[in-house]
């Protein structure tokens, strides 16, 4: 098994402070730092894994949730394979903002087939005693928004973190469709070429 691995770009979105960076660090480096700092702009890490016999390299993009970083994070939405919408179960506002995050992503990512784009929703910080968002409420939102998978996670306790990212990969693989290759048959037409004395692209 020395073939090239599939390379997928995965984006973590959500309010500042819900634990996106901790989730990424837990998954990639298996570390948790309770003294976490706010992300500035974007950060990303790689993780190699094998899913259902396929080698995959995940390029995980972690974004700054604060509004003032909007212009820094939005250029990196384009070309994502999957989006992980993240909220904290102890922060009702972060859950209520999921719709805005999804809208922002759809707007800036310029996805061609919005109905089929894979989202996974993460309810983080389930290690906390007090919850403001019930699991049923979160699952209902996921049902209403494209039936996306939902995972209750804790970066601190390493609960469901791997499962969530692996589900993201499976969502991408499930929606993978082959590129139309009929263009390989397009040949040169000399007569058409004559009209263009100089072809400049870009």
């Amino acid at each position: 098994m020395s073939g090239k691995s599939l390379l997928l770009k995965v984006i973590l979105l959500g309010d500042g402070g819900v634990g996106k960076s901790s989730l990424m660090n837990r998954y990639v480096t298996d570390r948790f730092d309770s003294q976490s700092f706010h992300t500035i702009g974007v950060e990303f890490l790689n993780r190699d894994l094998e899913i259902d016999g396929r080698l995959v390299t995940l390029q995980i993009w972690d974004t700054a949730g604060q509004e003032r970083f909007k212009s820094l994070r939005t250029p990196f939405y384009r070309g994502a394979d999957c989006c992980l919408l993240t909220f904290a179960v102890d922060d009702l506002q972060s859950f209520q903002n999921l719709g805005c995050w999804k809208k922002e992503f759809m707007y800036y990512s310029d996805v061609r087939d919005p109905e089929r784009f894979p989202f996974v929703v993460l309810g983080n910080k389930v290690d906390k005693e007090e919850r403001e968002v019930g699991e049923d409420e979160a699952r209902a939102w996921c049902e209403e928004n494209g039936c996306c998978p939902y995972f209750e996670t804790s970066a601190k306790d390493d609960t469901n973190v791997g499962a969530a990212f692996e589900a993201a990969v499976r969502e991408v693989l499930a929606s993978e469709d082959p590129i139309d290759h009929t263009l390989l048959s397009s040949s040169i037409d000399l007569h058409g070429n004559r009209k263009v004395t100089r072809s400049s692209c870009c």
Partner: protein
Amino acid sequence: MPDVRMAAYVHSKGVSWEVKNDTLMPSDRLRQDRSESPTPGLVEGTEPGAGQEGAMFVHAQSFEDLTADSEPNTDNKSAEVDDAQEEALEEGDEEEHLESEQEEKGKEELKNSNKAKEEDVTSETWRSHRKHVFVLSEAGKPIYTRYGTEEALSSIMGVMMLLMSFVEDKKNIIRSIHADGYRVVFLRKTPLILVGVSRTSCSDRELTRELQYVYFQIVSLLTLTQLNHVFQHRQSYDLRRLLAGSEHLTDNLLRLLDRDPGLLLSAVMCLPLANSARDVVSSSLQAAKAKNLVFSILLAGNRLVTLVRKKDQFLHHMDLHLLFNLVGSSSSFREGEGWTPICLPKFNPAGFFHAHISYLEPASDLCLILVSTDREDFFNLSDCKKRFLERLRRRSAYQSLQEALNTPSYSLSQVGIPELRHFVYKSKSSGLYTSPDLPALYEGGEEQERLMGLYQHLHSCLHHPTRPLRCIYRCTDTENLYALVTSGFELYLCFSPLGTKSLAVSAVNRLLKWIRKEEDRLFILSPLTY
């Protein structure tokens, strides 16, 4: 003994530069009487190596044509500012270059292609390469890296995309970063981003030109139409799926860029061959034609034997170099007949030609490339090859070709100029160049690349976008260099460090006389069409 380094720049005053030819069609020039005593100001079309009739190639400037697409007019001011800054750094770069050259003397680097791919990207070996090239999609996904694996460099490529996006978010464009003896050059060719890194004396423009070649190699494999289509369809597409198996083409192209002056000059070199023998080969190809055949090209290794083209169709040097690269990178064509789609991006980036590729004999270096617009044309072209071979044998030309292959180049001793170690001469109107064997001093790969780096430096001085030179003389510790460009030719010479400038100037005149005397053998003077 004090260490004296001198770089002499000579400006010609009162000389009006020729108006650039903005059409791809070369202008046919009436043949003028060729003077017995050539002068450096030879008019284009009368220089040694100029064809007597129409040219074979698109009339390409050495530099501008390749970068015209990537620098729209609105960026002219920005380009000037960048070049001014680059000029300020030039002196420091030279010192850095000399130091690094001394450090690397004696080092032997075995560049095994597979080993380069498996390199650990966190190792010092990976970091110490003189040059790196990266290709990524606008989504930040890795597509190609010269050393290491794309997956392992996923984060670094994300940083590159990030740098480009940050700058563009402020309605600006990033061209290059200079720091700590490194240059990092960025080139956006939507939907691709190409990044070159160098710690040589290469200028930004030289690095950008190399990235252009890599871009065209990719377009050659896919067509621009398909490239745009796959990313319009899915921005997250992993282009390595379509490029699988072609990495060695780009690897080999980058090696050529380090060593082959033809890619630098937008020119190709001919196999030295008697004029009469070449005429027989050309007319044999001319006779073995087919309805949809556009180009018939006979190669001998990396030398052009002849090229016959359909009337009104011209081949660009860059496209020919891509064909050379395709043939030179693969050994599979030797055994039988290859049939492959290929896009020639300068000719038409939108669609494929199909090329019949075969060696005249398995053990021979003679390779015939027949380029057709019809993808069902294989058997017709196979028949063309047979007819070509029959004709060659019937006219006893095959033996002449085989003998010429035994001496595919020539030694500098034939020129008979002491202190001259090497030269590269390009005839502008024919798009061909000639260059002797490298002397023993430069035979090692590293020394060859060093000499090519010096030529590249002279080339970028001569063709500076805002302050071009007509000639330049430069002394280093190990050799003296002289380069000049006229309306008819470009000439780059390497002398012993004991040489003087006046010796160099007189050597040019003697060399031009020699090339004139040998032009029948070194150039294609009578190209044919069908």
